[in-house]
């Protein structure tokens, strides 16, 4: 089986469309979506509609989705994020809000689980470095955990001696999933990459070959930027897309 793992679409429909086009060509069985369908981007309604229309997708809720529908403590949000959250809430119809609010915060399959932040704090914790990864490996319910939230692709691996390392991971550098090892894997972001590369990011997980590969998909960034500015959203949300940070 070949699965696509995506995350952090953040209302960027132009980027989502390019990624889905790629996925369609790739003979994919299912899509695993690690959350934050909305927030920041200018087309939240189209993104939710698109996700809801897909038959083979499994999504969990992200902190922005939760902020838009729920009671997320937004005191930790920066002012641009907060502006976008409030703007997004107004733009979504009630069915979409209901859809987002009923998403689970954790899902999984036979040998993997996925959530937005981290196993010990599914909505809010960022796993940037080894120490956060180390702590979270202890909370893994399955050998592989896909996460999102940081908008940067990364693979952490724990070997049988409980040593944790972060592996080099870029397009063309596929990573073998080894028996008895544990993994925390972040596919990066579809709609707002922050690893210095502005292209949308996703992972293809080949469960037969036991291999993951990173893919970067370019999209029409200017188009999304114009939509952000037209919507009256903060300028920085547009400019950062071109920088990929």
């Amino acid at each position, binding site marked *: 089986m070949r699965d696509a793992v995506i995350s952090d679409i953040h209302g960027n429909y132009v980027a989502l469309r390019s990624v889905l086009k790629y996925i369609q060509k790739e003979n994919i069985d299912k899509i695993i979506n690690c959350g934050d369908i909305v927030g920041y981007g200018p087309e939240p309604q189209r993104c939710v509609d698109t996700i809801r229309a897909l038959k083979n997708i499994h999504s969990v*809720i992200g902190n922005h989705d*939760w902020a838009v529908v*729920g*009671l997320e*403590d937004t005191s930790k949000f920066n002012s641009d994020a907060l502006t976008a959250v409030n703007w997004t809430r107004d733009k979504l119809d009630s069915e979409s809000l209901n859809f987002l*609010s*009923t*998403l*689970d*915060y*954790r*899902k*999984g*399959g*036979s040998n993997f*689980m996925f959530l937005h932040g981290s*196993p*010990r704090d*599914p*909505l809010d914790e960022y796993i940037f470095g080894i120490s956060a990864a180390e702590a979270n490996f202890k*909370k893994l*319910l*399955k050998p592989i955990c896909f996460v999102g939230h940081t908008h940067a692709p990364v693979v952490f691996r724990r070997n049988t001696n409980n040593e944790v390392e972060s592996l080099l991971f870029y397009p063309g550098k596929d990573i073998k999933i080894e028996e008895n090892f544990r993994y925390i894997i972040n596919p990066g972001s579809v709609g707002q990459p922050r690893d210095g590369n502005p292209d949308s990011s996703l992972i293809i997980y080949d469960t037969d070959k036991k291999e993951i590969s990173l893919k970067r998909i370019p999209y029409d960034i200017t188009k999304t930027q114009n939509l952000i500015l037209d919507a009256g959203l903060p300028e920085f949300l547009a400019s950062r897309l071109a920088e990929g940070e």
Partner: protein
Amino acid sequence: MSKFKLSDIIAGRWRVMASAQEGGMSEVYRCKDMKKNSTVALRILKKDANLQRFKHEATILKRLDHPNILNLYDFNDKGNDVYQIEEYLDGMPLRESLGGKNNFNLVKTADIVCQLLEGINYLHSEGVIHQDIKPDNIFILPDGTVKIIDFGLARDSRAEDVPWQTDLGVHGTPQYMAPERLDGYPSFSSDIYAAGLVLYEMLTRLNPFDIKNHTEALKKQRYYVPSPPSKINPMVPPELDRVVLKALEKKPSKRFNTAREFKIRLNSASQQPVRTKNIKWEFIVILILLAVFWIILFNLVKVLAA
């Protein structure tokens, strides 16, 4: 539309005596077992409902035997109909009596929760975690006996994963889920936490967390500290406050170690004199003193007048 009607005979043995009660996954009929001439409940799986869950429940229930646990007599999954034959429960779920306007009764409340904890204690001694303790799954019979029902989420700690839960999704009732359950870790202590919430609700008629879904539960069960029940219901003695809040500790290691320990503490806390009783007692003492004073005064006046 229910599957059977009154006086139908199911599998040549069970005669339908009352129309169906609908649940999410099953229909429940009161039946007469014509072989044994007794009353039973026949719980039949609805079309398209989760067969694995129903089977799983039957497997666990079948090996359990305790006065506070629903009794399963038989399970059939051959032929077209999948059903459980259970002890018929007269009475109603605790949820319904919580909704009523009946007066708060500390002794009765403690008795119900003590029976619940006896049932849970037995389950745990058998290696079973119920995982869905809540007022809807606690039946109160007319004689006051408590029966724990609904083992669809129960986990047999001696067995592997719950077979129909391999999706790792979050299963359970968010309003009653302990923090560690939300993290995906099964623990005997989660039943104690849930029983603590049931007790809280019986004492105050409120769930301390206003929770609508699992994500909200993740936040509130983990971080919100409930206010002591006596703040809401002054009839609750302070010692009982401590018992409830201990069951609701966020860390399993800070809760009661066993359901039995919880029960013993609940028992003694609920037998402490309640404030209203004190007031009555003091009132009587004052009345007696007044009477004595009046008699002395009356006699004094008589003596002086003489």
